[in-house]
């Protein structure tokens, strides 16, 4: 389904990054130099962020939202929390975060159980909420702590995920956001209750080189100058970029130093581009998130790296 929303603005994006690191050297020590070298060449990860034991995704999300909001809670009428790793089955993290963030009791608080496509799903949901004039701003936040949900003996997934929290504030402005979304009832990626992350690599790969490029191309217009992808795997990102006709420099990556940060992946890329790589001015981007579900959501939207605020905050427990 393709939908276009007018009058939107990405006001701010923030990420909270824990201090813990797992490096390719740690991975090589466990699985051997040959596997590590091959993993780096294909998957492209050299480092992932690890939260300390006991840190929840909502803790990271709260830190990101706190950095983003500062003292300004005005007009936040909805709070969407995206995570696959909530603190409890109930109550929802969004309800707890309403109080922890000092938001008003009128806030519509809603959890979204989504993985790597989660940021884009939440942006699309925020755009829907903002169709109602009573909703002035939507705070989207979330992330995952997956470091304790991977099989440490599985070389394919043990060194993939980063624990990162994100927040983004969506409000009213001049932007036109064109979304395309899809979901396909597949268990190719699963996170069983109390169990470890599992993935059917071939099915996921075939999905990412067929459905995702098709969706991106459905949104591509001449003014699009960059493609900001969920950072899943460097090899896959290069294939999607090629299939969609983008030059490598139009498809920035930070998976080497940041790993796969699940739903925080695209916010982390945005903050990295703004804070560390000198991206300035206006862009017309296609953002694309894809992951468990299988779910894939992309959006064409204007980005203004001058007026949107970007924060990269170290997480302090």
């Amino acid at each position, binding site marked *: 389904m393709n939908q276009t929303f007018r009058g939107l603005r990405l006001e701010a994006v923030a990420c909270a990054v824990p201090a813990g690191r797992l490096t390719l050297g740690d991975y090589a020590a466990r699985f051997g130099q040959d596997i590590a070298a091959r993993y780096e060449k294909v998957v492209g990860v050299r480092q992932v962020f690890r939260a300390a034991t006991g840190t929840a995704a909502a803790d990271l999300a709260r830190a990101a939202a706190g950095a983003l909001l500062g003292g300004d809670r005005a007009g936040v009428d909805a709070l969407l929390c995206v995570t696959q790793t909530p603190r409890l089955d109930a109550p929802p993290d969004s309800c707890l975060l309403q109080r922890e963030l000092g938001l008003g009791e009128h806030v519509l608080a809603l959890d979204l159980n989504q993985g790597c496509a989660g940021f884009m799903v939440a942006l699309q949901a925020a755009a829907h909420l903002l169709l109602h004039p009573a909703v002035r701003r939507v705070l989207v936040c979330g992330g995952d702590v997956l470091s304790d949900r991977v099989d440490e003996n599985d070389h394919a997934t043990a060194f993939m995920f980063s624990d990162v929290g994100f927040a983004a504030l969506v409000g009213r402005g001049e932007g036109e956001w064109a979304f395309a979304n899809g979901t396909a009832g597949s268990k190719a990626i699963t996170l069983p209750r109390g169990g470890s992350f599992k993935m059917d690599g*071939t099915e996921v*790969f075939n999905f990412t*080189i067929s459905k995702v490029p098709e969706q991106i191309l459905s949104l591509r217009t001449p003014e699009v100058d960059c493609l900001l992808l969920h950072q899943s795997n460097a090899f896959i990102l290069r294939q999607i970029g090629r299939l969609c006709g983008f030059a490598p420099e139009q498809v920035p990556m930070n998976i080497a130093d940041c790993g796969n940060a699940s739903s925080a992946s695209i916010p982390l890329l945005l903050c990295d581009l703004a804070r560390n790589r000198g991206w300035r001015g206006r862009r017309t981007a296609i953002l694309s998130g894809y992951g468990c579900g299988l779910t894939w959501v992309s959006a064409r939207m204007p980005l203004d790296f001058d007026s949107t605020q970007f924060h990269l905050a170290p997480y302090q427990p």
Partner: protein
Amino acid sequence: MNDADILAELADILAAPAPLTPETPLEPPLTWDSMALLAYLAFVRLTFGKVLPGVSCKDFRTVGDLLAAARG
């Protein structure tokens, strides 16, 4: 793309130390693992516009099997 071109691509994917023939088995010194499979699937998608669903490494025993699936 002719078979020689495809074999050259496969040699890169498989990190082959010597030229490949269709009879070459997918075993050491070739590197045929889950990561090579992804590279092969990407090559088939980009070159032939085909997606090969449900395949795994053990579905292919020789370089000729890879050629046949790409062309089939």
